Protein backbone atom coordinates (compact mmCIF):
# COMPACT_ATOMS: atom_id res chain seq x y z
CA UNK A 1 0.00 0.00 0.00
CA UNK A 2 1.07 3.54 -0.63
CA UNK A 3 1.97 5.57 2.34
CA UNK A 4 -0.52 8.17 1.17
CA UNK A 5 -3.34 5.67 1.10
CA UNK A 6 -2.46 4.44 4.56
CA UNK A 7 -5.37 4.64 6.92
CA UNK A 8 -5.09 6.13 10.37
CA UNK A 9 -4.46 3.62 13.10
CA UNK A 10 -5.28 3.97 16.77
CA UNK A 11 -2.41 3.78 19.22
CA UNK A 12 -3.06 3.13 22.90
CA UNK A 13 -0.02 4.46 24.67
CA UNK A 14 1.13 4.98 28.23
CA UNK A 15 0.58 8.48 29.56
CA UNK A 16 4.33 9.12 29.78
CA UNK A 17 4.52 8.89 25.98
CA UNK A 18 2.00 11.71 25.51
CA UNK A 19 4.54 14.25 24.34
CA UNK A 20 6.88 12.09 22.32
CA UNK A 21 4.65 9.83 20.21
CA UNK A 22 2.97 12.61 18.21
CA UNK A 23 6.46 13.85 17.21
CA UNK A 24 7.33 10.41 15.89
CA UNK A 25 4.14 10.10 13.86
CA UNK A 26 1.59 12.83 14.07
CA UNK A 27 -0.90 11.25 11.68
CA UNK A 28 -2.11 8.50 13.98
CA UNK A 29 -4.88 8.65 16.56
CA UNK A 30 -3.62 8.37 20.10
CA UNK A 31 -5.27 7.45 23.31
CA UNK A 32 -2.97 8.07 26.23
CA UNK A 33 -3.70 6.78 29.68
CA UNK A 34 -2.57 4.61 32.52
CA UNK A 35 -1.17 1.37 31.10
CA UNK A 36 -3.48 -0.65 33.34
CA UNK A 37 -6.55 1.15 32.13
CA UNK A 38 -5.50 0.78 28.51
CA UNK A 39 -4.84 -2.92 28.94
CA UNK A 40 -8.21 -3.42 30.57
CA UNK A 41 -9.86 -1.57 27.73
CA UNK A 42 -8.08 -3.71 25.13
CA UNK A 43 -9.28 -6.77 26.99
CA UNK A 44 -12.78 -5.37 26.61
CA UNK A 45 -12.35 -5.00 22.88
CA UNK A 46 -11.25 -1.40 22.60
CA UNK A 47 -10.54 -0.55 18.95
CA UNK A 48 -6.78 -0.22 19.37
CA UNK A 49 -4.26 -1.27 16.76
CA UNK A 50 -1.09 -0.80 18.78
CA UNK A 51 -0.52 -0.97 22.50
CA UNK A 52 2.54 0.81 23.90
CA UNK A 53 2.84 0.08 27.62
CA UNK A 54 5.07 1.54 30.31
CA UNK A 55 6.14 -1.99 31.23
CA UNK A 56 6.46 -5.42 29.75
CA UNK A 57 4.16 -7.19 32.18
CA UNK A 58 0.92 -5.90 30.78
CA UNK A 59 1.60 -6.56 27.10
CA UNK A 60 2.92 -9.99 28.07
CA UNK A 61 -0.31 -10.72 29.89
CA UNK A 62 -2.26 -9.68 26.82
CA UNK A 63 -0.01 -11.84 24.68
CA UNK A 64 -0.69 -14.83 26.90
CA UNK A 65 -4.41 -14.25 26.41
CA UNK A 66 -3.74 -14.00 22.68
CA UNK A 67 -4.97 -10.45 22.71
CA UNK A 68 -1.84 -9.03 21.18
CA UNK A 69 1.33 -10.01 19.38
CA UNK A 70 4.52 -10.87 21.20
CA UNK A 71 5.64 -7.56 22.72
CA UNK A 72 9.02 -6.00 22.03
CA UNK A 73 10.89 -3.47 24.14
CA UNK A 74 10.93 -0.15 22.31
CA UNK A 75 12.46 2.12 24.91
CA UNK A 76 13.59 2.31 28.49
CA UNK A 77 13.13 4.80 31.22
CA UNK A 78 14.81 5.53 34.53
CA UNK A 79 13.38 6.19 37.91
CA UNK A 80 14.22 9.45 39.66
CA UNK A 81 13.30 11.19 42.85
CA UNK A 82 11.60 14.54 42.50
CA UNK A 83 11.43 17.11 45.26
CA UNK A 84 9.66 20.45 45.23
CA UNK A 85 11.78 23.44 44.20
CA UNK A 86 11.55 24.75 47.75
CA UNK A 87 12.79 21.39 49.05
CA UNK A 88 11.77 22.25 52.56
CA UNK A 89 12.61 18.72 53.73
CA UNK A 90 16.21 19.19 52.52
CA UNK A 91 16.44 16.03 50.51
CA UNK A 92 19.63 15.63 48.56
CA UNK A 93 19.79 11.88 48.00
CA UNK A 94 17.83 8.71 48.32
CA UNK A 95 19.23 8.27 51.80
CA UNK A 96 17.57 11.46 53.01
CA UNK A 97 14.25 9.75 52.43
CA UNK A 98 14.80 7.82 55.61
CA UNK A 99 14.69 10.96 57.73
CA UNK A 100 11.64 10.90 59.91
CA UNK A 101 8.87 13.30 58.98
CA UNK A 102 9.59 13.21 55.27
CA UNK A 103 6.40 12.96 53.29
CA UNK A 104 7.15 10.51 50.54
CA UNK A 105 4.66 9.88 47.78
CA UNK A 106 4.91 6.78 45.65
CA UNK A 107 2.67 4.92 43.23
CA UNK A 108 0.69 1.89 44.25
CA UNK A 109 2.45 -1.48 43.83
CA UNK A 110 -0.01 -2.48 41.13
CA UNK A 111 1.02 0.42 38.92
CA UNK A 112 4.29 -0.21 36.98
CA UNK A 113 6.11 2.75 38.49
CA UNK A 114 5.01 1.63 41.93
CA UNK A 115 6.56 -1.79 41.59
CA UNK A 116 9.74 -0.23 40.17
CA UNK A 117 9.90 2.06 43.19
CA UNK A 118 9.71 -0.88 45.55
CA UNK A 119 12.41 -2.60 43.53
CA UNK A 120 14.77 0.39 43.80
CA UNK A 121 14.33 0.53 47.53
CA UNK A 122 14.88 -3.19 47.78
CA UNK A 123 17.99 -2.95 45.67
CA UNK A 124 19.31 -0.28 48.03
CA UNK A 125 18.20 -2.17 51.09
CA UNK A 126 16.16 0.79 52.20
CA UNK A 127 12.73 -0.77 52.02
CA UNK A 128 11.63 -0.59 55.61
CA UNK A 129 13.49 2.63 56.43
CA UNK A 130 11.95 4.55 53.56
CA UNK A 131 8.52 2.96 53.30
CA UNK A 132 7.63 4.11 56.82
CA UNK A 133 7.61 7.64 55.38
CA UNK A 134 5.15 6.86 52.63
CA UNK A 135 2.09 9.07 52.99
CA UNK A 136 0.25 7.87 49.93
CA UNK A 137 0.23 5.23 47.24
CA UNK A 138 -1.16 6.84 44.14
CA UNK A 139 -2.95 5.08 41.34
CA UNK A 140 -1.05 7.00 38.69
CA UNK A 141 2.48 8.34 38.41
CA UNK A 142 1.07 11.74 37.47
CA UNK A 143 -0.57 12.04 40.84
CA UNK A 144 2.83 11.54 42.47
CA UNK A 145 4.34 14.22 40.28
CA UNK A 146 1.44 16.63 40.90
CA UNK A 147 1.73 16.36 44.64
CA UNK A 148 5.45 17.00 44.59
CA UNK A 149 5.12 19.84 42.12
CA UNK A 150 2.40 21.43 44.23
CA UNK A 151 4.67 21.12 47.25
CA UNK A 152 2.32 18.85 49.16
CA UNK A 153 4.70 15.91 49.24
CA UNK A 154 8.34 16.29 50.11
CA UNK A 155 9.52 13.74 47.58
CA UNK A 156 8.29 11.18 45.12
CA UNK A 157 9.49 8.50 42.74
CA UNK A 158 8.66 9.16 39.09
CA UNK A 159 10.09 8.45 35.65
CA UNK A 160 12.81 10.84 34.59
CA UNK A 161 10.71 11.71 31.54
CA UNK A 162 7.82 12.79 33.77
CA UNK A 163 10.06 15.09 35.74
CA UNK A 164 10.82 16.98 32.54
CA UNK A 165 7.17 17.96 32.06
CA UNK A 166 7.06 20.27 35.08
CA UNK A 167 10.23 22.29 34.54
CA UNK A 168 10.95 24.83 37.24
CA UNK A 169 8.65 23.17 39.71
CA UNK A 170 10.66 20.21 40.83
CA UNK A 171 14.29 19.31 41.37
CA UNK A 172 15.39 15.92 40.11
CA UNK A 173 17.55 13.72 42.29
CA UNK A 174 19.08 10.77 40.48
CA UNK A 175 18.80 7.23 41.72
CA UNK A 176 22.13 5.40 41.48
CA UNK A 177 22.39 3.45 38.26
CA UNK A 178 23.17 0.24 40.07
CA UNK A 179 19.89 0.38 41.87
CA UNK A 180 17.83 1.15 38.78
CA UNK A 181 15.21 -1.41 37.90
CA UNK A 182 14.77 -2.56 34.36
CA UNK A 183 12.14 -0.04 33.20
CA UNK A 184 11.27 -1.45 29.81
CA UNK A 185 8.44 -0.19 27.60
CA UNK A 186 6.79 -2.87 25.55
CA UNK A 187 4.88 -2.47 22.32
CA UNK A 188 2.65 -4.93 20.49
CA UNK A 189 0.03 -5.24 17.79
CA UNK A 190 -3.46 -5.74 19.14
CA UNK A 191 -4.90 -9.02 17.89
CA UNK A 192 -8.29 -7.69 16.86
CA UNK A 193 -6.77 -4.83 14.89
CA UNK A 194 -8.12 -4.78 11.36
CA UNK A 195 -5.11 -2.88 10.10
CA UNK A 196 -2.17 -5.00 11.19
CA UNK A 197 0.00 -3.88 8.28
CA UNK A 198 -0.12 -0.26 9.31
CA UNK A 199 0.26 -1.24 12.94
CA UNK A 200 3.40 -3.17 12.05
CA UNK A 201 4.65 -0.18 10.09
CA UNK A 202 4.07 2.11 13.06
CA UNK A 203 6.03 -0.15 15.40
CA UNK A 204 8.82 -0.36 12.86
CA UNK A 205 8.85 3.41 12.73
CA UNK A 206 9.16 3.65 16.51
CA UNK A 207 12.00 1.16 16.53
CA UNK A 208 13.77 2.94 13.66
CA UNK A 209 16.72 5.23 14.21
CA UNK A 210 14.57 8.32 13.69
CA UNK A 211 12.05 7.06 16.19
CA UNK A 212 14.64 6.20 18.76
CA UNK A 213 16.23 9.65 18.32
CA UNK A 214 12.93 11.33 19.11
CA UNK A 215 12.49 9.19 22.19
CA UNK A 216 15.96 10.07 23.30
CA UNK A 217 15.26 13.77 22.92
CA UNK A 218 12.38 13.43 25.42
CA UNK A 219 14.65 11.73 27.94
CA UNK A 220 13.94 8.12 27.17
CA UNK A 221 16.82 5.68 26.99
CA UNK A 222 17.71 3.70 23.96
CA UNK A 223 16.08 0.32 23.82
CA UNK A 224 18.25 -2.58 24.61
CA UNK A 225 17.82 -5.48 22.33
CA UNK A 226 15.60 -7.87 24.20
CA UNK A 227 17.45 -10.87 25.45
CA UNK A 228 16.56 -14.18 23.95
CA UNK A 229 15.15 -15.22 27.34
CA UNK A 230 12.34 -12.73 27.00
Amino acid sequence: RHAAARSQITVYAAASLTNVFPTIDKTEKYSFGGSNTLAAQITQGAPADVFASANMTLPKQLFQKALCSKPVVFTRNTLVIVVPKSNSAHIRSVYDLTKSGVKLDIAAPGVPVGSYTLQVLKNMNLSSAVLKNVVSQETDVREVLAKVALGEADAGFVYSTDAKTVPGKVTVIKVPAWAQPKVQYGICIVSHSDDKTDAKAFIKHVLSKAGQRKLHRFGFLARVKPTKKN
Partner: protein
Amino acid sequence: MKRAIGYGLFVAVAVVALAFLLLPIVGIFVHTSPGKVLGQLSSPVVKDAFVVTLKTSLIAQALIILFGTPTAYLLATHRFVGRSFAITLVELPLVLPPAVAGLGLLAALGREGLLGSSLSALGVTLPFTQSAVTVAVAYVASPLYIRQAIASFEATDPHLTAASRTLGAGPVRTFFRVVVPLARGGLIAGLALSFARGLGEFGATIMFAGSLRAVTQTLPLAIYAEFAVNFDTSLAMGGVLVLISALLLLTLRIGLSWQRSPSSRSPSLFGLSSSA
Protein backbone atom coordinates in the same frame (compact mmCIF):
# COMPACT_ATOMS: atom_id res chain seq x y z
CA MET B 1 -29.06 39.76 73.07
CA LYS B 2 -28.97 36.02 73.14
CA ARG B 3 -31.28 35.67 70.20
CA ALA B 4 -29.39 38.03 67.99
CA ILE B 5 -26.28 36.00 68.74
CA GLY B 6 -28.03 32.82 67.73
CA TYR B 7 -29.06 34.36 64.46
CA GLY B 8 -25.61 35.78 63.86
CA LEU B 9 -24.18 32.32 64.39
CA PHE B 10 -26.41 31.08 61.61
CA VAL B 11 -25.12 33.66 59.22
CA ALA B 12 -21.54 32.99 60.27
CA VAL B 13 -21.93 29.26 59.68
CA ALA B 14 -23.44 29.88 56.26
CA VAL B 15 -20.60 32.22 55.35
CA VAL B 16 -18.05 29.60 56.36
CA ALA B 17 -19.88 26.96 54.33
CA LEU B 18 -20.07 29.12 51.23
CA ALA B 19 -16.45 30.16 51.60
CA PHE B 20 -15.47 26.51 51.81
CA LEU B 21 -17.34 25.77 48.63
CA LEU B 22 -15.86 28.79 46.90
CA LEU B 23 -12.25 28.27 47.95
CA PRO B 24 -11.25 25.40 45.65
CA ILE B 25 -12.65 27.26 42.69
CA VAL B 26 -10.76 30.39 43.63
CA GLY B 27 -7.76 28.12 44.13
CA ILE B 28 -7.98 26.87 40.57
CA PHE B 29 -8.21 30.36 39.15
CA VAL B 30 -5.47 31.79 41.32
CA HIS B 31 -3.17 28.88 40.58
CA THR B 32 -3.47 29.24 36.85
CA SER B 33 -4.39 32.93 36.41
CA PRO B 34 -7.59 33.85 34.60
CA GLY B 35 -5.61 34.78 31.52
CA LYS B 36 -4.40 31.22 31.08
CA VAL B 37 -7.96 29.97 31.54
CA LEU B 38 -9.23 32.22 28.78
CA GLY B 39 -6.23 31.25 26.63
CA GLN B 40 -7.32 27.63 26.89
CA LEU B 41 -10.59 28.50 25.23
CA SER B 42 -8.78 28.72 21.90
CA SER B 43 -6.67 25.55 22.25
CA PRO B 44 -7.64 23.00 19.58
CA VAL B 45 -7.65 20.13 22.08
CA VAL B 46 -10.08 22.05 24.26
CA LYS B 47 -12.22 22.86 21.26
CA ASP B 48 -12.38 19.22 20.16
CA ALA B 49 -13.12 18.11 23.68
CA PHE B 50 -15.76 20.78 24.06
CA VAL B 51 -17.53 19.63 20.92
CA VAL B 52 -17.47 16.00 22.05
CA THR B 53 -18.67 16.99 25.53
CA LEU B 54 -21.49 19.12 24.25
CA LYS B 55 -22.64 16.62 21.68
CA THR B 56 -22.61 13.62 24.00
CA SER B 57 -24.08 15.61 26.88
CA LEU B 58 -26.95 16.90 24.80
CA ILE B 59 -27.77 13.44 23.48
CA ALA B 60 -27.40 11.94 26.95
CA GLN B 61 -29.71 14.53 28.48
CA ALA B 62 -32.20 14.01 25.67
CA LEU B 63 -32.16 10.30 26.47
CA ILE B 64 -32.49 11.02 30.16
CA ILE B 65 -35.53 13.19 29.50
CA LEU B 66 -37.02 10.69 27.10
CA PHE B 67 -36.63 7.66 29.32
CA GLY B 68 -36.34 9.26 32.74
CA THR B 69 -39.51 11.32 32.60
CA PRO B 70 -42.00 8.48 32.15
CA THR B 71 -40.07 6.40 34.65
CA ALA B 72 -40.20 9.18 37.21
CA TYR B 73 -43.90 9.68 36.54
CA LEU B 74 -44.77 6.06 37.05
CA LEU B 75 -42.65 5.90 40.19
CA ALA B 76 -44.27 9.08 41.50
CA THR B 77 -47.87 8.12 40.85
CA HIS B 78 -47.97 4.40 41.51
CA ARG B 79 -47.68 2.50 44.72
CA PHE B 80 -46.55 -1.00 43.92
CA VAL B 81 -44.56 -3.74 45.51
CA GLY B 82 -40.90 -3.11 44.87
CA ARG B 83 -41.32 0.62 44.42
CA SER B 84 -38.72 1.28 47.10
CA PHE B 85 -36.36 -1.06 45.26
CA ALA B 86 -36.97 0.71 41.99
CA ILE B 87 -36.24 4.11 43.53
CA THR B 88 -33.11 2.76 45.16
CA LEU B 89 -32.10 1.40 41.79
CA VAL B 90 -32.53 4.84 40.32
CA GLU B 91 -30.25 6.26 42.98
CA LEU B 92 -27.53 3.62 42.81
CA PRO B 93 -25.51 5.11 39.93
CA LEU B 94 -24.86 7.99 42.27
CA VAL B 95 -23.23 5.70 44.81
CA LEU B 96 -21.02 3.77 42.47
CA PRO B 97 -17.54 5.19 42.05
CA PRO B 98 -17.78 6.22 38.41
CA ALA B 99 -14.92 3.91 37.41
CA VAL B 100 -16.80 0.96 38.89
CA ALA B 101 -19.89 2.15 37.07
CA GLY B 102 -17.83 2.12 33.89
CA LEU B 103 -16.69 -1.42 34.60
CA GLY B 104 -20.29 -2.36 35.26
CA LEU B 105 -21.27 -0.89 31.92
CA LEU B 106 -18.52 -2.92 30.26
CA ALA B 107 -19.68 -6.03 32.08
CA ALA B 108 -23.20 -5.38 30.86
CA LEU B 109 -22.87 -3.89 27.41
CA GLY B 110 -19.26 -4.72 26.50
CA ARG B 111 -18.25 -7.24 23.88
CA GLU B 112 -18.00 -9.92 26.51
CA GLY B 113 -20.76 -8.43 28.59
CA LEU B 114 -24.22 -9.75 29.40
CA LEU B 115 -25.82 -8.23 26.34
CA GLY B 116 -22.63 -8.18 24.28
CA SER B 117 -23.55 -11.01 21.95
CA SER B 118 -27.11 -9.75 21.48
CA LEU B 119 -25.79 -6.32 20.67
CA SER B 120 -23.17 -7.52 18.23
CA ALA B 121 -25.80 -9.72 16.58
CA LEU B 122 -27.57 -6.45 15.90
CA GLY B 123 -24.32 -5.06 14.56
CA VAL B 124 -23.91 -2.69 17.48
CA THR B 125 -20.64 -2.26 19.35
CA LEU B 126 -20.90 0.28 22.08
CA PRO B 127 -17.66 0.42 24.06
CA PHE B 128 -15.07 2.96 22.97
CA THR B 129 -17.44 4.77 20.63
CA GLN B 130 -18.98 8.17 21.04
CA SER B 131 -22.24 6.43 21.84
CA ALA B 132 -20.46 4.85 24.77
CA VAL B 133 -19.69 8.32 26.15
CA THR B 134 -23.35 9.15 25.87
CA VAL B 135 -24.35 5.94 27.62
CA ALA B 136 -21.85 6.51 30.43
CA VAL B 137 -22.97 10.09 30.96
CA ALA B 138 -26.62 9.08 30.86
CA TYR B 139 -26.04 6.32 33.38
CA VAL B 140 -24.15 8.45 35.85
CA ALA B 141 -26.19 11.65 35.55
CA SER B 142 -29.70 10.21 35.35
CA PRO B 143 -30.35 9.83 39.09
CA LEU B 144 -30.19 13.57 39.59
CA TYR B 145 -32.87 14.20 37.00
CA ILE B 146 -35.10 11.29 37.86
CA ARG B 147 -35.07 12.01 41.60
CA GLN B 148 -36.05 15.61 41.08
CA ALA B 149 -38.66 14.62 38.50
CA ILE B 150 -40.22 12.16 40.94
CA ALA B 151 -40.42 14.92 43.55
CA SER B 152 -41.96 17.35 41.06
CA PHE B 153 -44.51 14.85 39.85
CA GLU B 154 -45.43 13.94 43.40
CA ALA B 155 -46.08 17.61 44.04
CA THR B 156 -48.51 18.16 41.17
CA ASP B 157 -52.08 18.55 42.34
CA PRO B 158 -53.89 15.26 41.76
CA HIS B 159 -57.10 17.22 41.28
CA LEU B 160 -55.71 18.69 38.10
CA THR B 161 -54.91 15.32 36.60
CA ALA B 162 -58.30 14.05 37.70
CA ALA B 163 -59.93 17.10 36.08
CA SER B 164 -58.11 16.39 32.86
CA ARG B 165 -59.35 12.81 32.86
CA THR B 166 -62.97 13.77 33.40
CA LEU B 167 -62.60 16.26 30.55
CA GLY B 168 -61.98 13.34 28.24
CA ALA B 169 -58.20 13.28 28.11
CA GLY B 170 -56.53 9.91 28.50
CA PRO B 171 -53.50 9.38 30.74
CA VAL B 172 -51.03 10.24 28.00
CA ARG B 173 -52.68 13.46 26.90
CA THR B 174 -53.09 14.38 30.56
CA PHE B 175 -49.41 13.79 31.07
CA PHE B 176 -48.32 16.05 28.25
CA ARG B 177 -50.92 18.77 28.59
CA VAL B 178 -51.15 19.01 32.37
CA VAL B 179 -48.54 17.12 34.33
CA VAL B 180 -45.43 18.12 32.41
CA PRO B 181 -46.27 21.83 32.11
CA LEU B 182 -46.98 21.97 35.83
CA ALA B 183 -43.82 20.13 36.82
CA ARG B 184 -41.77 22.12 34.33
CA GLY B 185 -39.85 24.16 36.88
CA GLY B 186 -38.75 21.11 38.83
CA LEU B 187 -37.91 19.17 35.70
CA ILE B 188 -35.68 21.95 34.42
CA ALA B 189 -33.95 22.26 37.78
CA GLY B 190 -33.33 18.51 37.78
CA LEU B 191 -32.06 18.67 34.24
CA ALA B 192 -29.64 21.43 35.16
CA LEU B 193 -28.16 19.28 37.90
CA SER B 194 -27.99 16.24 35.70
CA PHE B 195 -26.44 18.27 32.90
CA ALA B 196 -23.87 19.66 35.30
CA ARG B 197 -23.03 16.21 36.58
CA GLY B 198 -22.76 14.94 33.03
CA LEU B 199 -20.35 17.69 32.03
CA GLY B 200 -17.97 16.69 34.80
CA GLU B 201 -18.25 12.94 34.24
CA PHE B 202 -14.88 11.23 34.06
CA GLY B 203 -14.46 7.78 35.59
CA ALA B 204 -17.24 5.89 33.86
CA THR B 205 -16.45 7.49 30.54
CA ILE B 206 -12.76 6.59 30.53
CA MET B 207 -13.59 3.00 31.43
CA PHE B 208 -16.45 2.47 29.06
CA ALA B 209 -15.56 4.79 26.20
CA GLY B 210 -11.84 5.38 26.43
CA SER B 211 -10.25 8.70 25.63
CA LEU B 212 -9.68 9.40 21.99
CA ARG B 213 -9.37 12.98 20.87
CA ALA B 214 -12.32 14.26 18.84
CA VAL B 215 -14.10 10.95 19.31
CA THR B 216 -14.55 10.09 22.95
CA GLN B 217 -12.36 12.63 24.69
CA THR B 218 -14.64 14.90 26.67
CA LEU B 219 -13.42 17.95 28.58
CA PRO B 220 -12.80 16.07 31.84
CA LEU B 221 -10.87 13.40 29.91
CA ALA B 222 -8.87 16.08 28.12
CA ILE B 223 -8.12 17.66 31.47
CA TYR B 224 -6.89 14.30 32.68
CA ALA B 225 -4.82 13.70 29.57
CA GLU B 226 -3.32 17.14 29.84
CA PHE B 227 -2.61 16.43 33.46
CA ALA B 228 -0.02 13.90 32.25
CA VAL B 229 1.71 16.58 30.20
CA ASN B 230 1.30 19.85 31.96
CA PHE B 231 -0.89 20.15 34.92
CA ASP B 232 -0.99 23.92 34.85
CA THR B 233 -2.66 23.69 31.51
CA SER B 234 -4.89 20.99 32.86
CA LEU B 235 -5.92 23.21 35.77
CA ALA B 236 -6.63 26.01 33.31
CA MET B 237 -8.84 23.61 31.39
CA GLY B 238 -10.55 22.81 34.67
CA GLY B 239 -11.18 26.53 34.98
CA VAL B 240 -12.79 26.51 31.55
CA LEU B 241 -15.11 23.73 32.65
CA VAL B 242 -16.03 25.64 35.80
CA LEU B 243 -16.77 28.76 33.79
CA ILE B 244 -18.94 27.00 31.25
CA SER B 245 -20.88 25.05 33.87
CA ALA B 246 -21.39 28.02 36.15
CA LEU B 247 -22.64 30.08 33.27
CA LEU B 248 -25.00 27.34 32.29
CA LEU B 249 -26.37 26.82 35.78
CA LEU B 250 -26.77 30.54 36.36
CA THR B 251 -28.57 31.08 33.09
CA LEU B 252 -30.97 28.29 33.90
CA ARG B 253 -31.52 29.52 37.44
CA ILE B 254 -32.09 33.14 36.55
CA GLY B 255 -34.24 32.22 33.58
CA LEU B 256 -36.33 30.01 35.80
CA SER B 257 -36.71 32.32 38.75
CA TRP B 258 -37.70 35.06 36.37
CA GLN B 259 -40.45 32.93 34.93
CA ARG B 260 -41.58 31.62 38.24
CA SER B 261 -41.72 34.85 40.15
CA PRO B 262 -45.36 35.80 39.46
CA SER B 263 -46.68 32.64 41.04
CA SER B 264 -44.18 32.60 43.87
CA ARG B 265 -45.37 32.92 47.40
CA SER B 266 -46.10 36.25 48.99
CA PRO B 267 -42.80 37.82 49.89
CA SER B 268 -44.14 39.30 53.12
CA LEU B 269 -43.54 36.28 55.26
CA PHE B 270 -40.29 35.51 53.55
CA GLY B 271 -39.04 38.93 54.38
CA LEU B 272 -39.79 38.21 58.00
CA SER B 273 -36.62 36.56 59.12
CA SER B 274 -34.42 38.99 57.25
CA SER B 275 -35.93 41.94 59.07
CA ALA B 276 -35.31 40.28 62.40
